[in-house]
C-alpha cells in the first residue's frame, strides 16, 4: 500500500524486494512500470477494453493540432501541458519535452481533464466503473486516475440517468488518460474510511 510505485521509488523497491524473495506482489513490477509509462499505459488500457483518449506521439510543435494536451511519456499526467492554439504550441512543446530531451504524447482534448482517487478498485466518483477497470488492468491498490469527461452526443440532462455530467447538465463519459501515484499519506479521512471498508471485502483484480 505504498501508493507510489514509480520506477526506482520506494514502492517499486518493495515490489522488487518481494519478487527477489519469491513473494507475489500486487501490482507486479511490470504492471507498476506499465502504469507509469504514459504510452505503455494507454496501449495496455486499450487492449484491456478501456475507452481511452485519442493520442499519438508528438513529433514536433508544428505538427500539433490544438486543442490538445501534451503528456510526457515518463508519466506524471498531473504535469500535462494544454495547447489551446497554434500560437502556444512551440512554448508548450518545449516545456513538455524539456527542450526536446524526452518523448511526449499528443492527446486530443475532447473534453475537460478530470481526476479521481481509486482505492482498491473503488472510487466515490461517479466514474467508479472506470476505477474498477483500471484496478483490474493494472492492479494498483492506490492511484489517481486521470480522464477526459467527454460529452455524450445527442443526450441531454436526465437527472436519474446520467452517471456524470459536465457541470452544464450534459451527460459525459470518461476517456481514460493516465495514472498518477497516490501515496497512502495523502488519503483523506474519507478515503481511509473507504479503504477500511473495502479491506473487508473479498476481491481480486483478476
Amino acid at each position, binding site marked *: 500500500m505504498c501508493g507510489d510505485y514509480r520506477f*526506482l521509488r520506494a514502492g517499486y523497491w518493495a515490489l522488487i524486494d518481494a519478487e527477489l524473495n519469491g513473494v507475489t506482489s500486487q501490482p507486479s513490477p511490470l504492471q507498476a512500470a506499465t502504469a507509469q509509462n504514459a504510452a505503455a499505459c494507454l496501449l495496455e488500457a486499450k487492449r484491456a477494453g478501456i475507452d481511452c483518449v485519442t493520442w499519438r506521439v508528438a513529433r514536433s510543435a508544428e505538427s500539433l493540432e490544438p486543442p490538445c494536451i501534451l503528456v510526457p*511519456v515518463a508519466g506524471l499526467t498531473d504535469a500535462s501541458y494544454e495547447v489551446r492554439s497554434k500560437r502556444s504550441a512551440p512554448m508548450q512543446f518545449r516545456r513538455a519535452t524539456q527542450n526536446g530531451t524526452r518523448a511526449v504524447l499528443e492527446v486530443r482534448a475532447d473534453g475537460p481533464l478530470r481526476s479521481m482517487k481509486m482505492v482498491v478498485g473503488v472510487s466515490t466518483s461517479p466514474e467508479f466503473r472506470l476505477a474498477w477497470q483500471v484496478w483490474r488492468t493494472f492492479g494498483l491498490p492506490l492511484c489517481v486516475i486521470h480522464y477526459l469527461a467527454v460529452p455524450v452526443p445527442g443526450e441531454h440532462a436526465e437527472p436519474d440517468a446520467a452517471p456524470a455530467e459536465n457541470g452544464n447538465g450534459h451527460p459525459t463519459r470518461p476517456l481514460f488518460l493516465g495514472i498518477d501515484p497516490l501515496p497512502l499519506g495523502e488519503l483523506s479521512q474519507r478515503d481511509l474510511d473507504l479503504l477500511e471498508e473495502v479491506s473487508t471485502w473479498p476481491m481480486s483484480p483478476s
Partner: protein
Amino acid sequence: MAHVALVTEAASRARTPEARAMRAYAESAPSRGHSVEVIDVADFHRIPEFDAVFLRLDTNVLGLSFAASRYAWGLGLRVVDDPRSILTCMNKAHTQGLLERAGVPTPETILLTRAGKESLDADAVFAELGSPVVVKAPSGAFSSAVEMARDAEQLRHQVTRFASRSDVVLLQRFVPSAFDWRVGVLGGELLYACRYRFPKGGWRVRDKAEGEGRMRWARIEPVPLAEVPELVLETGLLAANAVGTGLYGVDIKESEDGSVVVIEVNDNPNIDYDGEIAADSPLWAEIIDRVATRGPRA
C-alpha cells in the same frame, strides 16, 4: 518464417555502425526464411503486423522503447528486449539480487538505502570494500552512472548525487583490469564475445584517457568463442540466464589468477557492424532467427 520488426529511432538510424547492422539483419534474414522491416518506435500501430519485434535503440523504462516492448509483449509477440528484461537490466540493484540468488560471482556489494545514506559510515564502507569504492546509480547506461570514490568526501558526494535519482545506491568493491570481457547471449545460448579495452588509464567503457580531457569509448576487440576462457563463457551464460531469455551483454572482469566476477548484465547490448560482430559473420542471420524462433514472449 517470421516477419520481424526492427524497432529503431532517428538517433540509432543515424549512427553508421548501427545503420549498417540494420542493413545486415535485413539482407541476411531471408537466408533463414525470415523477413525484416525497419520501423520507427513511434509507429506503435504497426507492431501488430509483425510476428516478432527486435528493439535496436536505447531502451528506457520511461520512454517509447519500453512502451513498444510492452505492447508487443501484451500482443503475445516474441520481443527482444522484452519488458521484464528492460526493467531488470535498468535496475542494477535488481540485477545484483538475481545474480546473487543464482550464485553468479560478483564484486562485494552494499546496497545503500535512503535511510542508510543519512547514517553513511564511510570508514566502515572502505574497511569492508577496500579503496577505491565504485559508486553506482541503479539506472544508467554507458558508464554514465558509475563513479569512483577514494575518500569519505568523494563517497558522500557521489552517494548524494546518485541518491537524487533513486532511493537505492550501490557501493561495490573495485576490481582493477585493463579490459572487460563482453559476452553476448541470446535465447539462452552464447552468441559472441569481445574485449572492451578501456582508454589508457581509464577504468570504464567510456572514460577519459590519461592526460586527455575528453571522454573516449573503449576499443572493441572481437574474440572467437573458442578462444575465450571457458570460465568467462560459463559465467556469462549463467548471469544472462539469471535475468531471462532475451539478448544480453554480460560484462565480466577476469583477474590474473583466472577468477571472474560479473560487473553488469546489459539488455539491448551494442552490436556494431564490424565491431562486436564481423561484417561477414553468419551471426547477423542467426540473431534474427533466434529472435524469431526463441525470443521471449508472454
